[in-house]
């Protein structure tokens, strides 16, 4: 009995130590809510609350355990974070206070650096559009996104685009930049510099 208890405690400590030392968990500490991922108790409330968990190859609960296990490549190549709609159900319900929606942003940010998929291309095109004009312009964004991914999809978007034009919800005019567009570009550069890029 006594021996058994000690063994359990020791094993727990060893396990905890290992988890804390996982390089991937360490890497995620640099992102919002990365510090408390290890508090996950695998209750599954996140998966049960997620409107899109049924579409994911790995559910949110599982992805957390994979992070804790240091399965960096498998996590980053999963489609889980690209299905997150930022609805924050998991975040407000997590009994351990993990902001899982933020963790998903962190995973996307890391994955975007290497990922070649539709979602990563969309967010990157969006970010480029904002850098260019200081604001988002739907028509400009959609055209650039299509050219970046599959130019043929422009044809598919045509009918809705035309109806949007008719309703005045989109314009064909050249997008104009805000007066402070230079400030925006400077912020992009400054942040890249601070993050050690450029």
């Amino acid at each position, binding site marked *: 009995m006594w021996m058994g208890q000690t063994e359990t405690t020791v094993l727990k400590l060893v396990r905890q130590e290992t988890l804390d030392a996982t390089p991937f968990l360490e890497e995620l500490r640099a992102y919002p809510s990365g510090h408390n991922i290890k508090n996950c108790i695998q209750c599954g409330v996140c998966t049960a609350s997620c409107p899109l968990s049924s*579409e994911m190859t790995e559910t949110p609960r599982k992805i957390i355990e994979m992070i804790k296990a240091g399965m960096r490549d498998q996590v980053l190549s999963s489609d889980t974070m690209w299905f997150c709609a930022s*609805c924050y159900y998991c975040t*407000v319900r997590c009994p351990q206070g993990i902001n899982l929606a933020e963790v998903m942003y962190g995973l*996307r940010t890391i994955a975007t650096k290497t990922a070649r998929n539709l979602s990563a291309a969309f967010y990157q095109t969006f970010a480029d559009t904002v850098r260019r004009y200081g604001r988002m312009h739907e028509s400009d964004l959609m055209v650039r996104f299509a050219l970046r991914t599959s130019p043929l999809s422009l044809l598919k978007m045509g009918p809705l685009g035309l109806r949007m034009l008719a309703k005045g919800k989109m314009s064909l005019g050249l997008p104009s930049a805000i007066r*402070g567009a230079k400030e*925006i570009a400077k912020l992009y550069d*400054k*942040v890249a510099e601070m993050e050690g890029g450029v």
Partner: protein
Amino acid sequence: MTSSKKVSPVTTAAEKPRRRGASTAEGVPPVVAYSFFPGCSLHSTAREYHDSVVFSLAALGVDLQEVDDWNCCGATALSSTGTLLSYVLPARVLALAQEAGRPLAVACNSCFVTLNRANAVLDGQSEWRERVENALRAIGRTVQGATEIRHTLSILREDVGLKRLRQAVQRPLYGLRVAPYYGCQFSRPRYADANPELPVEMDEVLEAIGADVVRYDRKTKCCGGALMTTKEDVVLQLNEQLLREAQAQGAELIAVCCPMCQMNLDAYQGKINNRFGTRYNTPIVYYSQLVGFALGLSEESMGFSRGFVPATRHLRRYA
């Protein structure tokens, strides 16, 4: 009730003064004043939200002054590509709002969360705060701690108040069966003073203008937001479920408080019908359009014609 009484701002300010450090001399009616961040959608796909919010709040004594030369908050795209930048872009907007010296009003749910997310960082003492401030210095701007940020729905519900709203109604929408749909980012993750899973603010506002608010259990379920672009198949399903419950509850139209929700439910409704063999014909309108219409503002100025599914037939009986 005269129309001049309707727009008297005195009552509002007496109930809840919001203007910071305003010296209101005796006899000069103070105005509830905000800086206003419309965001990109309200300048393009959701112009009717812009106009209806600005006009109806003005009629209720709330002055919205657009933030000069505002930039995109970055929405979910920036938080998916770079953490620091996703705080820095909204922080520029907060700096501009602080320069203007008024609290900040936001109408779009997505902008509301994005700005609050950066605001929370600026309110704390983390290294993120230092880094954000450091980046802003590169363009000669500063931001001092937290900015007060309010959703326009909360301004309507709390600053104007239900009593004043009820009194200002000229065209009560009696018998109009409306499903209130909040989407996710009004009440989650708890930036507004609302129940994250069961908010009631829009229900109360719609009731105050006479509408028959139907029970709508999916009021805070997700519409998929921007995933409509990248994960269309499943997002169409989410929206079909939203439309199905509204119809089952006998709603004539759905009221929303977010341009993303409006776009997904309205512009894609035809596609949903094609895909699922359904025949939904449910107009998706902003709460502010209904409020303005009830206040006596014209159907035209509230932009009802801009919806893909026309709302006109439901409003004709009140004209």
